């Protein structure tokens, strides 16, 4: 596997950073255009899945260990529920983001709330997708050449 698929490995190296960058663009541009946490999380995971398909899952696991993913999965969900709890502690309803900036004239609280919540969604989705991929694919080292 190491010496084969030279074109795939080179293309992967070129594409990896732009895919991650695009994921962050989709993540933080969701307020202004199509996108948001779900799509961004999937795109983020896709970069690592591509890496895993071409270099083998073992190499990807060294770059992004399962322990980190498990933590990210939980932290993402906690960011979401924590924002809800925070707005309740500030005396408003669950996820009533205006409580985050009550004196704002342009709904800054809504912007902050949606940004944080979407970031939590993105973290959970990316970590979960990659976790599922790890668990399915680590049972067989790689796609055999005759299957292409």
């Amino acid at each position, binding site marked *: 596997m190491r010496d084969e698929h030279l074109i795939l490995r080179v293309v992967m190296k070129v594409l990896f950073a732009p895919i991650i960058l695009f994921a962050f663009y989709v993540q933080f541009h969701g307020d202004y255009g199509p*996108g948001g946490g*779900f799509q961004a999380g999937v795109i983020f995971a896709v970069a690592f899945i591509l890496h895993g398909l071409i270099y083998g899952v073992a190499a990807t696991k060294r770059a992004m260990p399962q322990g980190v993913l498990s933590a990210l*999965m939980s932290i993402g*969900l906690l960011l979401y529920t924590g924002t809800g709890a925070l707005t309740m502690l500030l005396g408003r309803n669950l996820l009533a983001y205006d409580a985050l900036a009550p004196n704002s004239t342009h709904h800054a609280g809504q912007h902050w709330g949606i940004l944080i919540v979407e970031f939590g969604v993105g973290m959970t989705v990316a970590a979960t997708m990659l976790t599922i991929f790890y668990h399915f694919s680590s*049972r067989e080292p790689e796609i055999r050449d005759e299957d292409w």
Partner: protein
Amino acid sequence: MTPSPGFAAAAGVLIDLALLTLLFIVAIQMLRSRQLFAIVMLSGIYSLLSAAFFVSLDAVDVAFTEAAVGAGISTVLMLAAMLLTVRREKPGTPGRAPVAFIAVLIVGAALVYASIDMPAFGDGASPANAYVGQQYVERTPDEIAMPNIVTAVLASYRGFDTMGETMVIFTAGLAVMLLLGVGSPRGGRAVRDVSRDEASRRRPSA
């Protein structure tokens, strides 16, 4: 030079027709194929074509999700799942075909009958566009002050829904971890169909 409205409408209809025809062909091909690898690839193509069709319906957010999740992640996960099983679908039992065919005919006829009552595409008075949908469109600039109304609905008006969806995804990941094992010595063990098939062949009496 800008195309005339009539030309643009005709081009839109042609694109829709082409996409729907391709969707139909891909679906038929998926039904006919017995190669699991080809079926997984065709389902990815099907998702990508649906995403293109959603774009032509101006539903860019849905199209984006379909392209990322349907054509991207699902295909990869199905490939990963396929590695754990055999490569070819088993031939079906032909005796049940008439019953299945009649059931499909009845359901299809019911769906066609229901589609007669559906509102026209883009109808402003349809239930989807009238009541709460209209309120979201009218109120978002004042209440949320956010250009993308889809995000405003998803993360603010229906933030509680989205929290549940995130929990569903979290639970799915948790379930896979519990079922397939994380960090356990058994989690990374390769499963081979060939050896199992050979083993069953060696013991014909069992």
